[in-house]
């Protein structure tokens, strides 16, 4: 599903910063992997490149069998819209839209009719236990609720890949465990998932842990599928 070959990325600021130094990575369809690393290790940059939110300098990135390189703005928007679902640490909900409108928004850009997209959005909210909160604005929701809304939004387009950047970073440990439980369930439906985290408790709940250090993959740790740890304290 995701294939990275020798990906390099440098930020050209006052001091050029070589963030990713030749990343080779393969994520199979239906896999759930986590990326761990200290801050500055390049894990967020890697996720942004996977999500086509940022570009890379050299190498090849194949997503769902398609080379993602030098895409036009519109092509990139289309790939993001149809193939990828995003979950962000800070939720990134639009403050003046209700929970339901936020969830329905990606479908608006697919020109799905209003009635249909609201119906779909309600279905997903219901699935995450937020039916009663559909008409609430983000600032009326708790952190866990917000993250569930953003998960519903990520899933509503039925993407191939879910990319999550520190999805529990702004949540307490109990809520974090709930969120991970949901992500795990979502994964059971066959969606490929990449989660960036610096919390081992989160990483232990995925199939594979990719350790990133100073822009290179240090090692890949495989969790025994039978022994996925749901009990370790997250924080």
């Amino acid at each position: 599903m995701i294939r990275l070959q020798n990906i390099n990325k440098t930020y050209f600021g006052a001091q050029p910063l070589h963030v990713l130094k030749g990343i080779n990575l393969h994520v199979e369809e239906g896999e759930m992997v986590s990326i761990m690393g200290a801050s500055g290790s390049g894990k967020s940059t890697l996720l942004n490149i996977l999500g086509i939110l940022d570009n890379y300098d050299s190498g090849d990135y194949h997503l769902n069998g398609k080379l993602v390189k030098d895409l036009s703005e519109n092509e990139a928007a289309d790939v993001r819209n149809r193939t990828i679902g995003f979950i962000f640490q800070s939720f990134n909900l639009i403050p003046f839209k209700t929970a339901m409108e936020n969830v329905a928004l990606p479908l608006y850009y697919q020109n799905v009719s209003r009635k249909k997209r609201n119906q779909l959005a309600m279905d997903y909210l219901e699935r995450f236990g937020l039916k009663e909160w559909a008409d609430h604005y983000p600032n009326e929701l708790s952190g866990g609720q917000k993250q569930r809304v953003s998960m519903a939004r990520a899933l509503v387009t039925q993407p191939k890949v879910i990319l999550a950047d520190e999805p529990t970073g702004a949540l307490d440990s109990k809520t974090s465990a709930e969120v991970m439980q949901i992500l795990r369930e979502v994964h059971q439906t066959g969606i490929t998932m990449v989660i960036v985290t610096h919390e081992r408790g989160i990483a232990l709940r995925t199939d594979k842990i990719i350790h990133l250090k100073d822009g290179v993959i240090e090692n890949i740790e495989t969790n025994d599928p039978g022994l996925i740890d749901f009990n370790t304290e997250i924080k």
Partner: protein
Amino acid sequence: MDFWREIFMALSRNKLRTFLTGFAISWGIFILIVLLAAGNGIVNAVSEEFSDQSKNVYSLYGGETSIPFKGHGTNRNIWFNDKDIRFLETEAKHVDLVSPFIYTGGFAYYGDKSCNVTLNGVRPVYHSISNTDLLKGRLLNELDEKNSEKVTVIDEALQKHLFDEGTAPIGQFIIVNGIAYKVVGVYEGDPNSSGGSALVPFSTLKKITHQSDYWMLRFTTKGLETKEDNEAYTEYLRTQLAHLHEFDPDDRSAVYIRSNMEEYLQAMKIFNTLELFIWIIGFAMLASGIVGVSNIMRITVKERTNEIGIRKALGAKSRSILASIVTESMLITTIFGYLGMWLGMVVAEVAGNILKTVQESKTIQLNIVPTVDIRIVLMATVLLIVCGVLAGFFPARNAVRIKPIEAMNYR
């Protein structure tokens, strides 16, 4: 349909932002219009003060020849007649309004009172040539002239001599040289003249006095803007009149040509300076309006950079984001711009009416009536709207151009 629903939702859910943006635009246009109106008011007041000099008026007086010419001897009287009027009206260059002037003297009677009077026969256009200051009633009109009506507009002096304090002169008949004239109006007249004066239709007085030679012709010109123009024009007139009346073009005493060129040129200078002043103020106002409107639009769009980033991450195309932002700003600027324009014009109008009432009660002398030119107002409004939209467009374009992750993390 969906597109518009999104727009209206974005506007109504962000009431404060919509209001502040709109208010900035309304206020900019409102202030612009009110100040333009005030400026125009001052110009109008000054114009009124200088209205006597606001026209280039030429007066031709008949004289006596002093040089023999084509078999004619000297000391021949030159009078004007209908041929001269036709010449001025049809052939002569730069002529605007023409009125001949004849007069007759006599006594005016009303009841048991009488007074020395000069009756002046003039065409209705004479009022605008000489700026008759009407105090009561009406001026002479084309119908009076056409039907040779026996009507008269008397001056204040004559009114004082003939009518008691309590008597309204309008509609009364006064008798001059055995003929009754109905008084239709009173004008200010010359306060220094000892006797009274009255204006009657030219055709009426011509018939009564059987005059076919006229002592004076008076007309206004247009397109003579410098002293040189006017001097050349005087020579031109003399040559043409010399041809019509067969006198030597070099004969200085055959006809007398007078004009208020000096005063006129001076008044024009004042007007031009004032007009320039108003334009400068207007442009300064417009510029500050544009800066204000542009700034608020720029800030609003900057504020939305995060939202733009989120929308892009979710798969929005740059074009669709740009389209909605530009449509939103157009909607806000147009609606609030129109509102500001409307309010500005209402305030100018109301202020004008209040000032008029105050002036009628004669508590202030300066005649300030604020007016606005609807075309200028519309142009200024449209310009502000266009600038506001453009000011929103460029930062919006920049925001959709940067990478979505940068837009999302923008602070």
